[in-house]
């Protein structure tokens, strides 16, 4: 029998769940392996998901608009006549079992889930690829608990499936139909990136307290979530308490002292009128998680230098005149940083817990603002590219970033990042390091300012840049030397064209 589970694929390195934007095939459609089945919104972009097997798309479990964690069963492809009902029922049963209230989900209760999935995997021929332990983005504490307790990888899948079903109800009457496989193609090893790392104790504590591990920032090695992170975690709980208060007896009366118990609870809550609650987009969640993790684990410090941009301004005008090409100051900064990074390999490095890893490529990430957040497309091997090449590539990447059309490899793999707020006439600012980089350069506007030139004051162009560095990798003196090199290159910009 050929049954292919359609499982939500990991389509970006940091993706933990996805929204099904639309199904490009309908139930009953004949599917060939490689056909595009659906368009999925990840935390970064909209991606197409291909079928991993052929047959008929027998069942769509999560309709367009629904959300699911990666690894979740979202559809079934099988041959006509193949009985897929038991499989779907099993998944639904598992979902129900897993979504039972926490007591039942004691983290100690282990193997059944794993065992069961093992069987169903055997029945379904080409379930995706032999995937390694999936994300455990801990969509629910229950799932996290199940995973912690189980030592077999399949258990994880059961967990993901379970929570998927909770997010979007499984249609109860699975039509028997032949089908077979579609699914997802995770790049080998890519799961590791999105997996929530937590100590077993932290997992069971989170399960007990109903805390979503994905929302907790880990302070252990490599961002591992440990006991103290759970203990100190107050996030949503505080928020919901505040939100809950006004509901008791209506918003208006809740503000009145009369309805407040004598003990006088949190004085803060009544003083803020609740506005609207905005659900988090996938991108927002990723920003929150990754940047909090960066700021909480990497000891940041900041070094600012001011750069004389007179020559760069003149050069840029010349280039634009001669080449009729658009080159921005930022493109010059990208080029200068790339050049400087080749000379300071320790700045082009990552913290590895028990080691420091330098990178053989200089890949510059460029922060691009989007209406719903930001993304950092990457100019690869920037040191080997000419200034016009860089300018064109950055414009192309930024344009497609705004259209959400970037491929995962185009917004991952940076070794250094540049964030530029010059267009808002910002003088200077500090940025949060974009992991796994060890430094980020925050670039201000090129401004006309009075400059002391000998004994005279004259107008000149100046730009301030501030580098945030991870002190575990880059010491202050090194940051200063690196910035001196960036400044030297930008103040003598002809060299950047050579």
């Amino acid at each position, binding site marked *: 029998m050929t049954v292919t589970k359609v499982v939500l694929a990991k389509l970006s390195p940091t993706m933990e769940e996805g929204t099904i934007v639309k199904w490009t095939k309908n139930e009953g459609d004949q599917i060939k392996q490689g056909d595009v089945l659906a368009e999925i919104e990840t935390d970064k972009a909209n991606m197409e998901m291909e079928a991993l097997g052929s047959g008929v798309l027998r069942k769509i479990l999560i309709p367009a608009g629904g959300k699911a964690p990666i690894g979740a069963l979202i559809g079934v492809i099988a041959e006509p006549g193949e009985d897929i009902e038991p499989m779907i029922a099993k998944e639904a049963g598992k979902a129900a079992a897993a979504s039972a209230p926490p007591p039942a989900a004691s983290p*100690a209760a282990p193997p059944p889930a794993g065992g069961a999935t093992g069987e169903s995997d055997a029945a379904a021929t080409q379930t995706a690829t032999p995937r390694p332990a999936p994300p455990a983005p801990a969509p629910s504490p229950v799932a996290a608990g199940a995973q*912690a*307790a189980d030592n077999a990888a399949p258990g994880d899948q059961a967990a993901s499936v379970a929570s998927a079903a909770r997010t979007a109800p499984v249609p109860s009457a699975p039509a028997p139909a032949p089908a077979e496989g579609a699914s997802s193609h995770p790049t080998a090893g890519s799961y590791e990136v999105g997996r929530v790392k937590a*100590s*077993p*104790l932290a*997992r069971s504590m989170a399960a007990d307290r109903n805390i979503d591990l994905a929302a907790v920032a880990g302070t252990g090695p490599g961002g591992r979530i440990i*006991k*103290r992170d759970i203990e100190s975690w107050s996030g949503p709980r505080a928020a919901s308490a505040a939100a809950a208060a006004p509901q008791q007896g209506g918003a208006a009366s809740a503000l009145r002292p009369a309805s407040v118990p004598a003990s006088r609870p949190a004085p803060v809550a009544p003083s803020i009128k609740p506005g609207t609650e905005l659900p988090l987009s996938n991108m927002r969640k990723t920003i929150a998680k990754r940047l909090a993790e960066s700021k909480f684990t990497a000891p940041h410090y900041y070094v600012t230098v001011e750069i004389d941009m007179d020559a760069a301004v003149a050069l840029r005008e010349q280039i634009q005149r001669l080449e009729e090409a658009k080159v921005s100051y930022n493109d010059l900064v990208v080029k200068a940083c790339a050049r400087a990074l080749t000379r300071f390999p320790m700045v082009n490095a990552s913290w590895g817990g028990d080691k420091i890893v330098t990178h053989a490529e200089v890949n510059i990430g460029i922060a691009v603002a989007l209406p719903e957040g930001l993304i950092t497309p990457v100019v690869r091997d920037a040191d080997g590219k000419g200034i016009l090449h860089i300018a064109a590539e950055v414009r192309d990447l930024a344009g497609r970033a705004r259209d959400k059309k970037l491929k995962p490899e185009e917004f991952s793999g940076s070794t250094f990042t540049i964030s530029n707020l010059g267009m808002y006439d910002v003088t200077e600012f500090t940025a949060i390091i974009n992991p796994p980089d060890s430094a980020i350069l925050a670039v201000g506007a090129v401004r006309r300012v009075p400059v002391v030139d000998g004994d005279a004051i004259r107008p000149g162009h100046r730009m301030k840049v501030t580098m945030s560095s991870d002190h575990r990798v880059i010491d202050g003196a090194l940051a200063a030397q690196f910035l001196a090199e960036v400044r030297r290159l930008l103040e003598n910009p002809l060299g950047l064209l050579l």
Partner: protein
Amino acid sequence: MALLTMREALNQALKEEMSRDPTVFILGEEVGAYQGAYKVTQGLVAQFGEWRVRDTPIAEEAIAGIAVGAAFTGLRPIAEMMTFNFSLLALDIIVNHAAKYRYMSGGQIRCPMVMRGPSGAATQVAAQHSQAFESWYAYVPGLVVVMPSTPRDAKGLLKSAIRDDNPVIFMENEILYNLKGEVPEEEFHIPLGLGDIKREGKDVTIVAWSRSVITSLAAAKTLAEQGIEAEVVDPRTLRPLDEDIIFESVRKTGRCVVVEEGWRYAGFGGEIADRVQRECFDSLDAPIVRVTSADVPMPYAKTLEKAYLPQPEKIVEAAHQVLYR
């Protein structure tokens, strides 16, 4: 309670058991006329005579062979190894005979013997005389392996070992012979296979045996000054192992450091780490950390000897590691 050295406590155990049971006898190198290389058998030859406290040639295989044969025929021999470094010569007798006959004879033949002596490093006796072999013996089904860390435990456990019907490998420690501690004056025994909490604490579990218990207690003192309460768990018997006392502690603290004087590679601490990770998985907040001797032969130089062995500072560091401090 009497304040005794471990040497005296062991001596008392031997005396009491020999007085109680005429089938108990001692054999080994220098155990009689010389009163024992480490004076554990002091005074015994005078009290019990040369027939029951027998000096032997320097021939460990023969000592063990005689002991095993005597045990098979119903005596309760106590074979002293001058140190366990030399017991390697007796390994075939212990592993292939002492440990096997009860099983292979369907229970018809028993081997109620004790092989005892100091194990582990002393001071500057170098590579061939500083070895901790408990992992070797604990590996063998059919043997009981005991490693006391206090005078009280030494006496109570040795008495139980002599009365046990299985071959017991009783490993003492030269550095601990002069360690003083309270020992009950009345008759008492400590059952084999029962661990003991040497210090209570709530923040981190340190599992250690023999001399490493003393090192761990020193580390716990330093940790306490830093506000960290370490619990020091002493299994006392490595085979059979009181794993429950370890699990209970780890479930309380969520963190586990295992200290041993042996080498890390295939060392007994790995056995404990294995059981803890499986049975206490959901309680662990950090990977289990082991503190062991260096994976090299023991150097002679004093400074290197210190660097080689587990030290309180290394245990403190390990505790910090599992506490993410």
